[in-house]
């Protein structure tokens, strides 16, 4: 029976914490890409251009139905096959950004559809432009509907960052693996990884729920 060694744990902690920062950065950047791209996907499906909406829908379904880790491999290895070399970080950001953009676009679509049709008509009757209608009337009302889903995926993308380790991104899982291989001790690094994930994801999930309530109240819609 192997015993837990605290001295070892403490010695690897700095390296693990540094890797955690990398993980947070990866999650943050990936999510930022996904938020913007997801909005483009969602709005793109509202255009009257039939071929575009069809392609977008199929693409989104495809991404949501296939494993993220496989998509990461695809993006990373396909580039060199055609002469484009992507760094692990870039490939990872593209893959994870696309993946979560597909999920977020569904959240956005649901939120936009949740705004009553009458709001669009009232905006037209006041002769507001499309930008004003979206920016000042529709999106503020769609936001609370989107927050719950968006928050869930924020926690989700954070938990999915270990998949980036398979293409060599120096995030938390990858670092723990390296530490384990170097020292022939996996117990402490892997357990610490688990604990760090819990410590970050659980409070974040709770915060998301609180934020949603606050946002609803602030926008005056006491539902």
């Amino acid at each position, binding site marked *: 029976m192997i015993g837990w060694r605290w001295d070892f744990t403490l010695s690897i902690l700095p390296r693990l914490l540094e890797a955690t920062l990398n993980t947070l950065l990866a999650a943050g950047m990936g999510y930022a890409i996904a938020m913007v791209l997801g909005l483009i996907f969602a709005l793109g499906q509202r255009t009257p251009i039939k071929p575009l909406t069809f392609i977008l829908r199929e693409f989104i379904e495809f991404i949501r139905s296939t494993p993220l880790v496989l998509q990461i491999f695809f993006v990373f290895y396909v580039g060199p096959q055609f002469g484009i070399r992507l760094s692990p970080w870039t490939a990872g950001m593209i893959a994870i950004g696309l993946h979560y953009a597909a999920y977020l676009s569904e959240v956005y679509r649901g939120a936009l559809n949740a705004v*009553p049709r*009458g*709001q669009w*008509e*009232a905006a*037209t*009757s*006041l*002769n*507001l*432009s499309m930008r*004003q209608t979206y920016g*000042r*009337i529709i999106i*503020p*009302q769609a936001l609370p509907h989107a927050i719950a889903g968006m928050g869930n995926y924020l926690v989700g993308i954070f938990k999915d960052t270990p998949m980036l380790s398979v293409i060599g991104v120096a995030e938390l899982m990858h670092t723990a693996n390296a530490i384990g291989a170097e020292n022939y001790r996996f117990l402490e690094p892997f357990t610490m990884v688990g604990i760090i994930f819990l410590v970050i994801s659980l409070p974040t999930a709770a915060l998301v729920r609180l934020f949603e309530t606050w946002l609803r109240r602030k*926008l*005056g*819609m*006491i539902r």
Partner: protein
Amino acid sequence: MTAKPLADYPLELSGPDAPMVRFRNVTKRYGDLTVLDSLNLDVAEGEMVTIIGPSGSGKTTVLRMLMTLEPIDGGVIYVDGRPLTHMPGQGGLIRADARHLRRERANIGMCFQHFNLFPHMTALENCMEGPVQVLGLSKQDARERGEELLEMVGMADKRDEHPARLSGGQQQRVAIARALAMRPKVMLFDEVTSALDPEVTGEVTSVIRNLVGAHNLTMLMVTHQMGFARDISDRVCFFYDGRIEEQGTPDELFDNPQQERTQQFLSAVNEAF
């Protein structure tokens, strides 16, 4: 289906007798269903016209097309002498583009059956939104205008409340103030009392009553409130199956309906009382 330019429609309506609103041969289809069939209707400036009829007769569609909420399938709608749904081009009239619609739409305002107030804004902010964003008024001027109008509809003390805290009748009055803040030449009322409890319809109808004749405002109303329509309208149109079955002054239509369908409708409505 790119239609060729319409050549046999005037590019503008001029002269002292030109109507404020003109529907000329207007047709509207939903798939196989023809909701409006070559409709011709004129409304003079300052006139108050009420449209009545059974559901499915196309009366709400008339208002919605005038507010450009629905596209037109045939004919032309003119507002203030100029085409609304079409614009001059290629030697005749071609379908209006977004820019033209936005320009001409400024003359028209609408109040809806379900109010459609913006829930994330206060009553006053609702009234200020159009003037600030579209008309370019300063916040100060828009606020003054908004407060004046809210005062007029009797909602001045609720100016800082959100719609969720207002009753139906109160919301509808704010909606009227909001529409008026844009100073439209034509006001449309789409069954504005149908979603209200009977006891409170009075607050809304009295506001509308006060508007009749003010500032030469042209008004079109769709309603089931026959008594009210009779009281304030200059003309009443009875719609059936997408066409005007009969029209006339309130006295003419209500006391002496000529067409059988009109008589049937009016007696059915009267039984409901």
